């Protein structure tokens, strides 16, 4: 479903550049029409996704490539638009269905990233890229909670796994926390 991104940012996996990625995504989200709090949450989701790649995908190697692609969802008669964010890496491929956060009842440091991403975004999907690395696709639609309900629960297979945003108390666990 992804066209070529209208905006693309390549960065290396150095945590010092997280702030720049957040600023870019937050700024674009604001221009699309998201409110201030949603912009902040979308930027947070991207930050968490990048941090997970750096921490788990690249084992804290700070010189590996990450690509962020952004496509707005244009407003239409029955939609007020939104944003599609794609994040590609060259990390080791894993089963997309294992990309889950830990149970929130188990309060301990770490492991919250995937939970936060899924809580903030309307749809989150992980895929194996064709040759190397993983791809994460996140979708957020502006306002109208009923919009997200229209998104069907995506099919799950060994190459892709999709989760739509319904209230989640627990979300299992896996390596990219």
């Amino acid at each position, binding site marked *: 479903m992804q066209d070529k991104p209208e905006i693309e940012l390549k960065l290396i996996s150095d*945590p*010092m550049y*997280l*702030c720049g990625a*957040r600023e870019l995504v937050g700024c674009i989200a604001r221009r699309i029409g998201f409110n201030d*709090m949603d912009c*902040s*949450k979308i*930027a*947070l989701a991207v*930050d*968490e996704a990048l*941090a997970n790649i*750096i*921490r788990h995908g690249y084992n804290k190697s700070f010189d590996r490539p990450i690509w962020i692609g952004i496509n707005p969802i244009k407003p239409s008669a029955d939609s007020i638009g939104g944003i599609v964010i794609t994040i590609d890496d060259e990390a080791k491929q894993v089963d997309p269905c294992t990309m889950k956060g830990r149970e*929130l009842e188990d*309060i*301990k*440091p*770490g492991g*919250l*990233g995937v*939970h*936060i991403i899924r*809580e*903030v975004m309307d749809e989150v999907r992980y895929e194996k890229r064709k040759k190397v690395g993983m791809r994460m696709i996140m979708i957020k639609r502006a306002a109208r909670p009923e919009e997200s309900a229209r998104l069907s629960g995506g099919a799950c297979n060994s190459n892709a796994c999709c989760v739509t945003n319904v209230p989640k108390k627990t979300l299992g666990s896996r390596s990219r926390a």
Partner: protein
Amino acid sequence: MAKQQSEYISVDRPEQGVVVVSPSTDIDMSRSPELRTTIRQEMGSGVHKMVVDLEEVHYMDSSGLATLVEAMRNASKADTKLVICNMHEKVSAIFEIARLDSFFTIVGSRDDAVSI
């Protein structure tokens, strides 16, 4: 022994046994290690209360949350009260998303944090 000072984190002692740690930057993966180190250094003997003042923190990610969860655990072990204050709405949101808002003692102002 002199403690290492951080460019982005100040430490005050408004009362005997009370330490206020005040970061003045976004807390993300690149900054949370400094906060973690500072909190660990300051949570020594004789400290019965540690206040983390987030007035100048306009952004925090899960690495910051993890740092505070660890601090809370260490505080409990050391019989130290950990209080967070001056939290901005956007920072508060991540505590709610992670359902940690009730795990911490969170108050409005630094004065409240020091006095409770």
